[in-house]
């Protein structure tokens, strides 16, 4: 018999309001309905009422986690429209900030993924090492989030020479910890059991649904704007695109973890190669015309389109964000798995079954298992899983 398990719009562990309707048969998810729009604030409507230089602050607030990617794509679009390029130093600064943001975003996801499978240790550890990064943002840009570094024709703030050692120091710490997380997560039988072969999105489905970013790269579909259509400093530094063919949640986690190493590599090279010079070029007016900007946000390609009529405001501004495509692919990824796995597959959502550790079993009106019995059962199960995965 089919039943419906509603998740949202205000679900305990869900950060954002969104509504998923899981259609289940017993424990198995057979279908998914997605209802979004709780967060609609009308950015594209507000944008033409602001001047060119005010819009970056608006698009920054589309998403707080990708708050560098949207203004980045927007300034690239306006620069394309006005036929200007940012001075080399500004290009490097923007690249550095974009990569630091990628690390921050991947860590955030990793922590929350740990939280969703009820493994709060992962969450606490990962977020602990995210904190110094936020301090770094505060040092470079003056705010922990919403950095406002992108400006049409350049960057708003310089990265000072005296800040380099602090950044380097953090990168060293991060590299060490990232190694630790990678080996800890890929070695943990419980995490492997929860992530491996769960939520598989095949390569064909990934292409059919037009998914982007780590979701696509985790399904062996290697697309990355930074490689395919390099901008700013991305073609001047050496880095690799990470892709895994399996398509399960583990592959996506691996993509994200290893991408952090690549980001560290990019930031190090940028800091070393950063030329001296001005950080912004003078922009007098935006001529009539249109332009596009693409940037690889932590979640995939962000695309901005602007049209100008020569006035001080855009007359049209279109935003295409990656999550819209990625969310739609949940419909195939979640089918056939159990409700408990759905939490993880939907990733941003948690139906709270997996953190229900206070189970009680009653038989003939009598409590069957005590707390100790449950603990023993859980240990036995972990041992069983460990044997299977460790061989």
């Amino acid at each position, binding site marked *: 018999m089919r039943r419906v398990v509603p998740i949202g719009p205000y679900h305990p562990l869900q*950060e*954002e309001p969104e509504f998923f309707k899981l259609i289940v048969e017993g424990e198995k998810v057979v279908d998914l309905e997605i209802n979004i729009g*709780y967060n*609609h*604030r009308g950015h594209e409507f*507000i944008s033409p009422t602001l001047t060119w230089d005010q819009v970056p602050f*608006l698009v920054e607030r589309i998403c707080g986690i990708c708050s560098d990617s949207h203004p980045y794509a927007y300034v690239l679009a306006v620069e394309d429209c006005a036929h200007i390029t940012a001075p080399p130093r500004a290009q490097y600064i923007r690249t550095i900030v974009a990569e630091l943001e990628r690390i921050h975003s991947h860590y955030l996801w990793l922590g929350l993924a740990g939280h969703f499978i009820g493994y709060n240790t992962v969450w606490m550890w990962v*977020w602990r090492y995210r904190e110094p990064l936020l301090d770094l943002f505060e040092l470079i840009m003056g705010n922990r989030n919403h950095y406002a570094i992108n400006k049409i024709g350049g960057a708003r703030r310089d990265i000072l020479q005296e800040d380099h050692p602090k950044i380097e120091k953090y990168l060293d710490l991060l590299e060490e910890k990232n190694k630790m997380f990678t080996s800890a997560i890929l070695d943990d039988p419980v995490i492997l059991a929860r992530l491996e072969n769960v939520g598989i999105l095949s390569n064909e489905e990934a292409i059919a649904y037009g998914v982007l970013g780590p979701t696509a790269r985790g399904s062996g579909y290697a697309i990355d704007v930074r490689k395919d259509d390099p901008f700013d400093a991305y073609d001047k530094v050496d880095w690799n695109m990470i892709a895994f063919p399996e398509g399960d949640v583990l592959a996506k986690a691996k993509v994200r973890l290893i991408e952090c190493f690549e980001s560290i590599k990019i930031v190090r090279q940028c800091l070393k190669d950063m030329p001296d010079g001005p950080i912004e070029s003078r922009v007098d007016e935006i001529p009539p015309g249109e332009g596009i900007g693409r940037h690889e946000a932590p979640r995939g390609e962000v695309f901005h389109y602007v049209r100008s009529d020569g006035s001080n405001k855009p007359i049209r501004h279109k935003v295409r964000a990656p999550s819209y495509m990625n969310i739609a692919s949940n419909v195939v990824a979640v089918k056939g798995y159990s409700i408990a796995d759905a939490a993880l597959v939907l990733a941003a959502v948690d139906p709270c079954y997996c953190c229900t550790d206070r189970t009680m079993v009653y038989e003939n009106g009598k409590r069957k298992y005590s707390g100790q019995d449950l603990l023993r059962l859980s240990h036995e199960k972990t041992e069983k899983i460990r044997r299977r995965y460790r061989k």
Partner: protein
Amino acid sequence: MGNAKLWGLKKSPWVFHVAAASCNNCDIEILDLITPRWDVERFGIVLVGSPRHADALLVTGVLNRKNLPRVLRVYEQTPKPCLVIGIGSCTCHTHMFESSYNVVGPYDKYLPVDVYIPGCPPKPEAMILGIVKALKRL
């Protein structure tokens, strides 16, 4: 009963997090509060999973046409007295979304907000201070 609840509330406020149309940053900073750096659980502030267990609501983001009825419903489900703490500039003055067609206006038209914490996003220290101020009002 009322006194007992008030005593419990002051001692250990259980908070429920409601994201209206926010940009996520305020929400992340709220989650940051329970991670090791800030760790507000040592003050007895616990993030709970149901509005029915909540002593305080942490609201973030602007209200829009679609989520307004849901946010009000969450508020109705909370046992009273329930503090409402508005986090971020979005809750204080609808931020830069005031001119949008979908935003229904400031919070105090719909909800009795006790404390507003400005900032975009406010720093975790500011949030802790805000919660303390809200508790002092009781």
